[in-house]
């Protein structure tokens, strides 16, 4: 349920967040207003809503399915932003699936133990389960590892290229108004 405030619209324009006007001595890192959520209970990954997400399709810039009007700005920058989001979604999908099956399997192992098991026997049963689990998941994890490694470095490299491009553009035309 969304409870919206009753204060008048003009208060929306005031920022009530304390410490909002940080005087940043050097701009080593741009102020990013990404929204970071708590870790997902199953996949343990934090969802992120990026502040500079690529522009979305809407009726103004899409007339027909083959229209290119929705793609404004630099292609490489668009690709980097999309790649970032895709990587997050890829990780989320993999770990959600993997952990759901892991916890289900662990519960099944614990349920199957008889009532009168000592803590040491329970520990031994779980140790055996962990070994079986890792052997079972070996191929799937190996594929994920390779894919994650490839995508991670490619996204970082692409981000570096985009930043370098921005820097060069700003250095070549220092007095151009930001577009």
């Amino acid at each position, binding site marked *: *349920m*969304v*409870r*919206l*405030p*009753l*204060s008048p*619209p003009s208060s*929306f324009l005031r*920022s*009530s*967040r304390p410490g909002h006007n*940080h005087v*940043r001595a*050097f701009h*080593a*890192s741009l*102020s*990013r*207003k*990404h*929204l*970071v*959520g*708590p870790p997902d209970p199953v*996949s*343990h990954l*934090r969802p992120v*809503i990026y*502040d500079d*997400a690529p*522009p*979305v*399709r*809407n009726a103004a810039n899409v007339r027909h399915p083959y229209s290119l009007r929705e793609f404004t700005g630099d292609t490489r920058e668009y690709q980097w932003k999309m790649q970032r989001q895709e990587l997050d979604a890829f*990780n989320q999908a*993999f*770990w959600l699936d*993997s*952990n759901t099956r*892991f916890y289900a399997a662990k519960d099944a192992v614990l349920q199957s133990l008889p009532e009168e098991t000592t803590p040491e026997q329970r*520990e031994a049963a*779980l*140790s055996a389960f*962990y*070994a079986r*689990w*890792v*052997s079972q998941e070996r191929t799937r*994890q*190996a594929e*994920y*590892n390779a894919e994650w*490694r490839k995508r*991670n470095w490619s*996204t*970082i490299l692409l*981000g*570096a290229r985009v*930043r370098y491009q921005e820097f060069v553009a700003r250095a070549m035309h220092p007095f151009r108004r930001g577009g």
Partner: protein
Amino acid sequence: MRGAVSPLCGLRLQELRSQHPQSSKTPPDPPSLLLRRSQVGQVLRLLLRQSQVVAGVQGSICLSHFTSTITIRTRSFREAQVLTPRRLAKIYWQLSKSSLTVLVALTAMSGVALCPLPTTVPVLLSTALGTAFCSASANAFNQIQEVPYDAQMARTRNRPLVRRAISPLHATGFAVATGIAGPALLWTMVNPTTALLGAANIALYAGAYTYLKRKSTVNTWIGSVVGGIPPLMGWTACGGSLLPSSSQSFELVLPSFMTSLSSIPTDLALADNPLAPLALFLLLYSWQFPHFNGLSYLVRESYAQAGYRMLCVLDPHKNATVALRHALLLVPATSILMPLSGLTTWAFALTSLVPHAICVEAAYRFWKHGGEKQARKVFQHSLWYLPVLLGLMMFHKRGMDWGSWLSFGSDSTEEGEATTTPA
């Protein structure tokens, strides 16, 4: 006033207010707002600002965008913090795994302290700082590559990249900068051998070890080599050599009852032989096994869930066997090899038997029973074992006349004369 539109995000506020009067009961259906996806961030920020509470904004928004519908729960989304220099420094500190970096720098400095060759304070400080930079770079590269795996394990969930405090590109920049600064500092201020060892350590840890963690259990051995290199860096920083050379011959320092000499030579240069750095390396190398194997047994569930290939998961009995093997190996590597090489006096062989006995006993129990209680004991003993042994080595260092330091014996009279003659 139906249809009043907020200037900021086009929400139909009045309509919603009429739908949901101020009651304590939760309404049955969530309202559906027609929002553009780009406005989601604005709405969330709006709610956060107006509610003055960062956490606990309950609610769900149904978005309908053309034909697809997405439901986002606005539970506790926080804005990423502005990176002030202070916060950035803290994040860099965490990226470099600060406690590990400090301990690595200390082991490098202990290598400098134990080396008999003369050294200066700038060399000591440069070695410490250069080693710290190398360690920071290696750890940062490791964290960049392991973001989703660290998220799975409770122990590592609060690392900066996992909690999105910093972007991967920024972390890579830090890793590259420290990875260049460390070896460069060592090359210019110390010597090239130390710089090459530092660079090799970064490659071993960030490259080989991190890759093998997901491939094979041999990663633990590679990681132990990584731990053994910093004292060697300290040794070479003073100008000591690691490999035996044909031109240089050295003698083994035997205990007094085995030699025919009437006095024990206290010549410091005796320790300038390759057995001494070998002994230091073996101490740090073998120590890693009881330390890591004990700890990893305690967190084996996290390792299994995250898909790491570790001995504690795949073969717990071999895990304990390796820990015992290296706990036993530590005894000759320290108690015999160190006095033999001339690093310490033979009294060290006797005094070091006490920590050895305690640790070997704990490792034996872990091997015999293999439970979490025994594993915890092995790990806890490993924590004090290393500083105690390094302390004993410093105390028993060959050439250290503690009597003169504490004003006992004949040397103190000579010192007393030396200080009083100018008066």
